[in-house]
């Protein structure tokens, strides 16, 4: 834990499909941030009380990067920032997690923002890192140039087939017997780890539900839980994720996650919400 508040200066605001990559000068948070952690961003203009939780997309030296898709008024304002303007941040929040060497990353759409830092760290340290990345359309496959630059072995899938393979990312999971297109899967097995023992996913909730169902019991699944949040420090208990034990209890995504071991999640209660 090293929570801090930092007024970050916007260094660059670059377009990436229908999202923006904000590069910020935030030396203290950038130095402390680890993969899967997040920051709480104060929406410029002062009309919103709740800060917006955003994954640390990347952190190097003094620079912190956030990949933001304008999905509401708050994120739209954050996306409009120009270089030289300031952004009020608190963080980094959430648990650290050491990525096992054989992990397969699965991302859906803007969910790549939650796993990119881990992929980048792995690639920069010379490890082989693999990503199965799905989106609705090609414009929502973000950070492709950066993934290529890092040498990440990525398989792209779009629902409309506008880029990469056609369908859902979960249909292309290598080594999974229930995957519908076994032929393609067999081809992919040469590109991705033959049978992932650890899957780390960030994307929409239905993707998690499918992953949880199709992965066999000896594979470990970790999912990045994005919830409405207020405090970031585990105090207010707003960001509740249904937990298996004790029955009826909840995990605080901000403090105990946001990357959560799927075996701790009560999927029956969670699926009702999908």
């Amino acid at each position, binding site marked *: 834990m090293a929570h801090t*508040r930092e007024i970050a200066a916007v260094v660059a605001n670059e377009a990436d499909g229908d999202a923006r990559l904000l590069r910020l000068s935030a030396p203290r948070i950038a130095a402390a941030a680890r993969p899967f952690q997040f920051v709480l961003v104060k929406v410029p203009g002062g009309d919103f*009380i709740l800060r917006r939780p955003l994954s640390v997309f990347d952190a190097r030296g003094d620079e912190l990067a956030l990949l933001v898709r304008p999905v509401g008024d708050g994120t739209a304002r954050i996306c409009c920032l120009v270089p030289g303007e300031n952004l009020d941040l*608190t963080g980094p929040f959430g648990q650290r997690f050491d990525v096992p060497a054989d992990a397969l990353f699965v991302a859906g759409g803007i969910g790549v923002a939650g796993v990119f830092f881990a992929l980048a760290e792995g690639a920069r340290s010379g490890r082989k890192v693999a990503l199965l990345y799905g989106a609705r359309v090609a414009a929502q496959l973000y950070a492709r140039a950066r993934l290529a630059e890092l040498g990440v072995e990525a398989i792209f899938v779009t629902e409309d087939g506008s880029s990469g393979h056609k369908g859902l990312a979960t249909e292309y999971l290598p080594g999974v017997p229930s995957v519908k297109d076994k032929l393609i899967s067999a081809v992919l097995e040469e590109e991705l780890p033959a049978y992932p023992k650890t899957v780390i996913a960030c994307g929409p909730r239905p993707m998690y539900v499918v992953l949880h169902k199709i992965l066999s019991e000896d594979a470990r699944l970790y999912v990045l839980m994005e919830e409405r949040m*207020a405090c970031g420090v585990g105090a207010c*208990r*707003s960001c509740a994720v*249904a937990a298996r034990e004790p029955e009826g209890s*909840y995990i605080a995504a901000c403090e105990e996650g946001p990357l959560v071991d799927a075996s701790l999640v009560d999927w029956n*209660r969670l699926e009702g919400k999908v």
Partner: protein
Amino acid sequence: MSAPTSVTAGRLELATPVVLASGCAGYGDEWLELVDLDALGAVVLKGVSREPWPGNAPPRLAEAPAGVINAVGLENVGLDVYVREKLPALDDLPCKVVANVVGKAAGEYRDVVAALDGEGRVDALELNVSCPNVKARGAAFCARAKGLRALVEDCRDETTKPLWVKLAPMVTDIIPVAKAALDGGADALTIANTVPAMAIDASARRPVLGNVYGGLSGPAIRPINLRLVHLVYKATGADIIASGGVDGWEAAVAYVLAGARAVQVGTALFDNPAAPAEIVAGLDEYIRREMFDGLSFLVGKLRGDRA
């Protein structure tokens, strides 16, 4: 001479009039790195019940104009873990600690109060009487003055520590409710809790909150709670800790002028964790500028008050 911002509220001496509100403040140590605890008079811990409560189904949070609606549902670890793990972690906290107590029956409140009376780290108790009373078919304890008085009397019998009662804002007439709490033995009243509210997602045509209904907090409710503080102060002269949308020193001064001796800060933390320190600095400057000897001289000193 005491510092100009020190006050006494409900027999509890506070170094500053700024108190972290129950719920937002967690178990007192979560905010250590972001909130300057030296600026605080006290922290009111998350409500504790006799047994653990799991809380409500998510989503538990909705944004509202100038406010936040929450339906956390008083998730808490229960009395045993609270005493065994949470209170001992607060030994080094530089401010007073107030335990907030919740329950579904009078006996549950009484048991928790009795157990906390022996805890040295607890400086005062605050009863949250907005909880639904199982015996009264789910009506809140504070909905009927008679029942509330009996509840407070029960708890009063179990503790010599300062006892605050946190009232709900949505009652037909808050004055008999406030008097009932005072007659039952309350040392101070916290006015008031969140305002019942809901949010609907127009696109999904669904309630935003898993619990459908929640409680509105933040600046949106400040004018409502300000009036309640004023009403109760005029009618009773009681020690009041104001709560509802305090996000700066002006709001704190307004509550003090209406009759409060201290203010609670909750929702403002989410926006600005430095709010408590900024409020104390602002109050200090205000007192010096206006040349008052201390904040307590301002309590209820509203000019041109014809109400």
